[in-house]
C-alpha cells in the first residue's frame, strides 16, 4: 500500500478490478450480436428474410442491453429471432448487474478507500505552498500543539495512528485546511507522503506517546533530510540518550524537564518565571509566582516522574521521604522510605506530613494523586503541593483543587516544542536564562511585564537577510542602521512599539537584551517578545523601504517616480 501514493494508482486499481466484468460484458455482447446476425428474420408478408446485419444487430443489442428498448427495428422479428432475443436480454442483464455490483463492492472496499484517502492526502500535502510543520502523533500533546500552531497561523500536516483521533481532528475548528492521515508515522514512506522532503517543510515534531515510534521518526528524518530540524518527545532516559546519539536537534523529556523546573523554582524562582513567560502559549494568563520552600519533602510514587524529581530535590539540599508501595530496596539509599500509596492519612503521617513543607503527588494515577494531595492538605494546610496530572481531560478536577504546581506532561512537551521549533533562537535564550543569576532574571521579568501586562507574550525571530528584511539589507549597503528602527512604530516615529528585543545572534556570538543603539549587520538573527499586532508593525520596517526611510529620517519620501521628480524640483519646506 505504501507505493500507492499517487492518484494514478486509483485509476489502475479500478481497471484491474473491472477486468473480469468488462470481459464478461464484451463476451455477452459478442454472443448476442453474433446470434442475431445468424437467426433468420421475416418480412412484412410473413416470408423468410435474411438475418439482421452486424450493424442492425449491434444497434438492437445496444439499446436492449441497457434496457432502453425501442422495439423491433428495422422490421418486426421472426419467432426465431424473438427466442434468441429472450436469451440476449437475460444474458446482458446479468452482465451489467455483475459489472455494477463489482464497481459498488470496489467503492466500499476498505483497501480501495484507503488508496483514495492516501491519494487525496498526498495531493493536499503536495499543493501546500506555505511553510508547514509535520506533526506526528496527535494525542493530547499533539492536539495542544496543533491548536497553538493554528492560533499562530502556521500550517501543519498531521499523521496519527488512531483513526478516531484523525476523525476528531476533522471536527476541530481550524482556521486553515489541515491534511491529516491515519497511518503509522514510523514508516518512512508515510513520512515522505506527509511532506518530509517537501520544499516547504520547516520541521518535524515526533510527539506520539510511544518512545519507539518517536525514535523511528527521528532517525528517519535525520537520515532522509539531515538538515531538517526534528523535535522528539522521549519519556525514558534511555530513549533520550539514543536520540541524542544520532544528533536529534531537540529532545524533550517531560518528566526530566519538569524536575529541572522544580529544581530551578527552588533555586531561582525568577529564572523559572521568565522561562514560563517565554514558553507559555501566547495570550495565556500566568498565575503569580510561588516559590517552593526548602525543608522536608514527601514524594509519593516512584516512577519515571518521581525519580528525577527526587534527584532534583536532593540536589537542592532538601530532605526527601519517598512513599511508594514498592519494597524499600528500589529507592536510592539515603532517602527515607515509607511503604504505601500515600492516599491514606496513616501512611502520610508515618512519612511525617505534619513537619513537612512540601509534597509531590506523583503517581501515574490522577485520582490517586488528587486523593494524596487532598489528604495531605487536610493534615497540614500550609503544605506546598506539587501534583502530577496525567490526563488533560482531568483539567477541571485539578483546577478545582488548586495545587501550587500542577505538572501536565503533555502541556510541557507542547509548550517546549512550540517555543523551540518555531523560534529556533529561543533554545539559545533559555539556555542563557539558566546560566544567569536570579537577580538578572527578576530584572528581565519586570521588563517583559511592562510590555505585555499579565499575558504570555508572542516570541518571534527576525533574520536580517534579503528574504525577510529586504528593506534593511538594502539600507545597510548605504549606511548604518541601528536596532532602534525595529522598536519604533512606522505610523509615528515618536511612539515606541511594545516589544522587547531578547537576543541578538551574530556569527555564533549572542548578545542578550541588545542595546537599542546596536548597529545591525546583514546576517544578524534577533529574537523579540511582544504581540502579534506589534509584530506586523515591525514587519513594515523590515520589508517596506518607504517605512524604513521614514523611521530613519522622520520624513515621508515620495514613492512614485513622478512624485519624486516633482519634489526634487521644488525644494522641501
Amino acid at each position, binding site marked *: 500500500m505504501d507505493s500507492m501514493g499517487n492518484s494514478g*494508482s486509483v485509476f*489502475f*486499481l479500478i*481497471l*484491474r*478490478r*473491472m*477486468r473480469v466484468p*468488462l*470481459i464478461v460484458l*464484451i*463476451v455477452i*455482447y*459478442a454472443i448476442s*450480436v*453474433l446470434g442475431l*446476425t445468424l437467426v433468420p428474420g421475416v418480412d412484412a408478408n410473413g416470408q423468410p428474410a435474411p438475418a439482421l*446485419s*452486424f*450493424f*442492425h444487430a449491434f444497434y438492437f443489442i445496444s439499446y436492449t442491453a441497457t434496457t432502453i428498448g425501442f422495439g423491433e427495428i428495422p422490421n418486426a422479428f421472426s419467432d426465431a429471432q424473438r427466442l434468441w432475443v429472450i436469451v440476449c436480454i437475460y444474458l446482458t442483464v446479468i452482465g451489467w448487474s455483475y459489472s455494477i455490483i463489482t464497481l459498488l463492492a470496489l467503492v466500499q472496499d476498505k483497501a480501495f478507500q484507503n488508496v483514495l484517502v492516501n491519494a487525496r492526502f498526498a495531493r493536499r500535502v503536495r499543493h501546500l505552498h506555505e511553510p508547514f510543520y509535520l506533526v506526528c502523533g496527535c494525542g493530547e500533546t499533539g492536539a495542544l500543539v496543533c491548536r497553538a500552531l493554528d492560533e499562530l497561523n502556521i500550517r501543519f500536516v498531521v499523521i496519527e495512528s488512531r483513526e478516531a483521533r484523525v476523525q476528531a481532528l476533522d471536527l476541530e475548528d481550524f482556521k486553515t485546511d489541515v491534511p491529516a492521515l491515519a497511518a503509522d508515522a514510523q514508516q518512512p514512506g508515510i513520512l515522505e507522503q506527509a511532506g518530509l522532503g517537501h520544499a516547504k517543510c520547516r520541521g518535524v515534531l515526533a510527539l506520539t506517546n510511544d518512545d519507539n515510534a518517536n525514535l523511528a521518526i527521528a532517525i528517519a528524518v535525520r537520515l532522509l533530510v539531515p538538515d531538517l530540524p526534528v523535535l522528539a518527545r522521549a519519556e525514558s532516559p534511555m530513549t533520550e540518550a539514543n536520540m541524542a546519539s544520532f544528533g536529534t536537534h531537540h529532545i524533550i523529556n517531560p518528566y526530566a524537564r519538569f524536575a529541572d523546573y522544580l529544581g530551578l523554582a527552588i533555586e531561582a524562582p525568577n529564572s523559572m518565571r521568565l522561562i514560563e513567560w517565554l514558553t507559555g502559549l501566547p495570550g495565556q494568563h500566568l498565575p503569580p509566582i510561588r516559590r517552593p520552600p526548602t525543608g522536608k519533602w514527601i514524594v509519593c510514587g516512584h516512577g519515571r516522574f518521581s525519580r528525577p524529581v527526587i534527584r532534583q530535590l536532593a540536589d537542592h539540599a532538601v530532605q526527601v521521604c519517598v512513599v511508594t508501595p514498592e519494597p524499600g530496596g528500589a529507592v536510592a539509599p539515603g532517602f527515607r522510605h515509607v511503604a504505601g500509596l500515600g492516599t491514606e492519612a496513616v501512611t502520610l503521617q508515618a512519612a511525617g506530613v505534619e513537619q513537612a513543607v512540601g509534597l509531590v503527588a506523583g503517581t501515574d494515577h490522577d485520582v490517586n494523586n488528587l486523593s494524596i494531595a487532598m489528604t495531605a492538605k487536610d493534615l497540614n494546610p500550609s503544605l506546598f503541593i506539587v501534583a502530577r496530572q496525567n490526563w488533560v481531560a482531568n483539567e477541571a478536577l485539578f483546577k478545582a483543587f488548586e495545587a501550587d504546581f500542577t505538572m501536565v506532561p503533555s502541556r510541557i512537551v507542547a509548550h517546549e516544542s512550540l517555543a523551540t521549533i518555531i523560534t529556533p533562537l529561543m533554545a539559545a535564550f533559555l539556555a542563557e536564562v539558566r546560566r544567569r543569576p536570579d537577580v538578572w532574571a527578576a530584572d528581565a521579568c519586570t521588563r517583559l511585564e511592562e510590555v505585555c501586562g499579565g499575558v504570555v507574550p508572542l516570541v518571534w525571530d527576525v533574520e536580517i537577510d534579503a528574504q525577510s528584511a529586504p528593506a534593511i539589507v538594502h539600507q545597510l549597503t548605504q549606511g548604518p542602521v541601528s536596532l532602534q528602527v525595529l522598536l519604533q512604530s512606522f505610523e509615528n516615529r515618536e511612539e515606541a512599539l511594545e516589544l522587547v528585543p531578547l537576543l541578538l545572534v551574530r556569527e555564533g556570538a549572542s548578545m542578550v537584551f541588545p542595546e537599542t543603539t546596536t548597529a545591525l549587520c546583514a546576517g544578524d538573527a534577533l529574537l523579540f517578545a511582544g504581540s502579534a499586532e506589534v509584530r506586523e508593525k515591525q514587519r513594515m520596517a523590515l520589508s517596506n523601504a518607504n517605512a524604513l526611510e521614514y523611521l530613519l529620517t522622520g520624513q515621508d519620501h515620495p514613492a512614485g517616480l513622478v512624485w519624486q521628480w516633482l519634489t526634487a524640483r521644488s525644494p522641501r519646506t
Partner: protein
Amino acid sequence: MRRYARRGREAYNQKILTASWGAVMNLEKVVFAFFILLAATLNFGFFIGDIARPELHSIYELFAAIVVSLIATVLKFGDRTQIGAIHLATSLVADLQLIAAAVTWAIAVHVTEVGMTVHVTSSVVSLSGGALFANIVSVVILIIETVMMRR
C-alpha cells in the same frame, strides 16, 4: 519417504505439484498470450486476400477480430509496468483501427448504401491491415517479455 506422516506426505505432494505447475505455466499468462495471438491471427485471416475483393474478406471474421481485440485490451488493464503500458497502447491502436474499419463498413452498407465497392473494401481491409501491424507489435513484445523473464 517413510519419515513423512500422512499429512506431511500430502504437503510434500502438494509442494511437488505446485512447484512443477509454477515452473511450467501460469494460467494468467496462458490466457493473456492466447488472446493476444488469437487477436493477431483473426486479424490476419480477415486481412489476407486481394484487398479489393469483398468476397475474400468475411465480415464475421472482422467481428471476431474486434471482440477478441477488445478482450485482449481489457486483459492488459491494471498492469503498471513499462511493458504493460506498451501492451495496452498497441492494443488500443488495434481496437481503434478495427472499429474504424467496422464503422466504414457500416456506413458504406447501411448509411450511404453504396455497398462493398472496390474503394470501400480496400479501405476496410487496409484499416484492418493497420490493426494487424499493431497486433504483430503486441506479439513481438509478448515474445520479448517471455525471453526476458526466462532465467
